[in-house]
């Protein structure tokens, strides 16, 4: 499979199970390149979200979930780090927009700081809010309504707000789980453009059901099936010349 020098993120034989004896993710090994977009594709239930959530240690919230293998960020095993530190380095954007309902747009953007008890001056806050909302192309739309609740925005705007919230903490990796599946094509388009912009500064791993999206924005693609990583290659190569027959079937729309 694909070899990557100096990866930012590495999976080594990672397996995750929700119920004993049944792996939702099975022996996945892969390396993720810096400042690129890597797409994870595969039919529903193949373990994409499960793999992504292993990276920022979300599975630890649920006592029944078992993980084996190693995940390295910058060559450091995430299990040797504090989970809060891991989550600061690897930000996550969820499938459904989830701004904090009691916070204003402004407070939502800097929520990562306030929740972590990091004190900022008014000026620092203003700057963070402005740059990050500009980053996600939301500034012009909301600059006069910063004190309104984040939940008043449209779904697409909320999702961009959530991306701004994740970016405000300056993570190294941005994990995105189908960030556009709840959005209309126009909002989806804007977020795709945004991701292409963002990859200058961030590494993005994005789960997507949408093959067109993977083809449009990703540099590398993974294809998962029944918990296994079937194929991992440059997106160009995978879409034009898939090595595995299951990948080919999936890409030609025969299942999933």
């Amino acid at each position, binding site marked *: 499979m694909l070899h990557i020098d100096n990866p930012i993120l590495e999976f080594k034989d990672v397996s995750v199970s929700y119920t004993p004896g049944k792996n939702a993710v099975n022996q996945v090994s892969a390396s993720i390149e810096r400042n690129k977009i890597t797409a994870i594709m595969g039919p529903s239930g193949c373990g994409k979200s499960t793999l992504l959530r292993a990276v*920022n240690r*979300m599975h630890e*919230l649920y006592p029944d979930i078992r993980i084996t293998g190693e995940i390295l960020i910058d060559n450091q095993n995430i299990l040797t780090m504090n989970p*809060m*530190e*891991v*989550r*600061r380095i690897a*930000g*996550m954007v*969820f499938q*459904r927009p*989830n701004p*904090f*309902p*009691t916070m204003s747009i402004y407070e939502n953007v800097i*929520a*990562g700081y*306030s*929740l*972590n*008890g990091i004190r900022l001056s008014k000026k620092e806050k203003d700057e963070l809010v402005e740059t990050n909302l500009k980053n996600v192309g939301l500034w012009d739309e909301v600059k006069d309504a910063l004190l309104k609740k984040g*939940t008043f925005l449209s779904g697409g705007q909320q999702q961009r707000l*959530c991306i701004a*919230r*994740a970016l405000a*903490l300056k993570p190294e990796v941005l994990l995105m789980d189908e960030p556009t599946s709840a959005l209309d094509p126009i909002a989806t388009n804007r977020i795709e453009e945004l991701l292409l912009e963002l990859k200058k500064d961030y590494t993005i791993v994005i789960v997507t059901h949408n093959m067109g999206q993977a083809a449009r924005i990703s540099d590398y693609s993974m294809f998962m099936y029944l918990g296994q990583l079937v194929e991992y290659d440059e997106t160009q190569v995978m879409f034009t010349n898939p090595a595995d027959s299951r990948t080919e079937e999936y890409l030609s729309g025969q299942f999933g």
Partner: protein
Amino acid sequence: MIPDKSRSSSVSFRIFKDRFFYVCVCLMASLTAIPLIWIIWEVLKKGYRQINLSFFTEVAPTTLEAIKAKNAGDLIPGGIANGITGTLIMVVIASLIAIPIGILGGVYLSEHRNNRFSSLIRSLTDLLQGTPSIVVGIIVYFWVVKPLSSYSAVAGSVALAIMMLPLIIRSTEETLKMLPGTLKEAGLALGASYTSVVLRVLIPSAFGGLFTGILLAVSRVTGETAPLMLTALGASAVNWDITRPTSSVSLLIWQFYNDPNLVDMIWSSSLFLLVLILILNIIAKSVANKWRIQ
């Protein structure tokens, strides 16, 4: 032909049954409303005359004062200031005890839905909720009154707090359970600590429900009498010292009931309690509506 006929007759019979049932439901509903309306009417009619400024500023009259006034053909003098202040003090202290414990307990139950300890706590909470208030009073008598060797507002507050606890725990649990799980994940995914997610994300998001639960618990214990008899005892003067016996509006009502010369005061005091509880309930309802979780 015959099956047709039987079918149509059974339909009309079913429609009849339906109507009959509906009429019964309406009838029963109005039957329950009658005593409620009657109580309110009675209390209003008999109580309103007594309500004036001195009702709120003066302490309860003595038998002698009442007899004198009656002979002179006046209204019974005095008010229920000692009861109002006592109720206020005890409900506030009880809330200060019950709210933090209740909310944290509710957080625990909503976070640990299936473990043994939380089902134990849940059953104990249900048990506590069903415990007769007089029993709570007796327990607090042995826990607080005896060791301090005095009836006191503190003891009364502890008894009220124990009665508030299950209500607050369960309403907190139910409200937090209605929050989407993604909210907690969103907070943690930003690298926030669990404590800060609970305190700054979950509890504020559930504020409406928590507040409603607290107000309902307060309104529930505001009129409690039995546990206070064994703990706060009562006092004839306004008392701000929480280590000494203290009165409450409900204790005063009991006192008035036991003194034939003061019976007239029962109605005005009851009216006061009813209105207070009504207001608490109205606030609780409107807060619940305003802050309903989207």
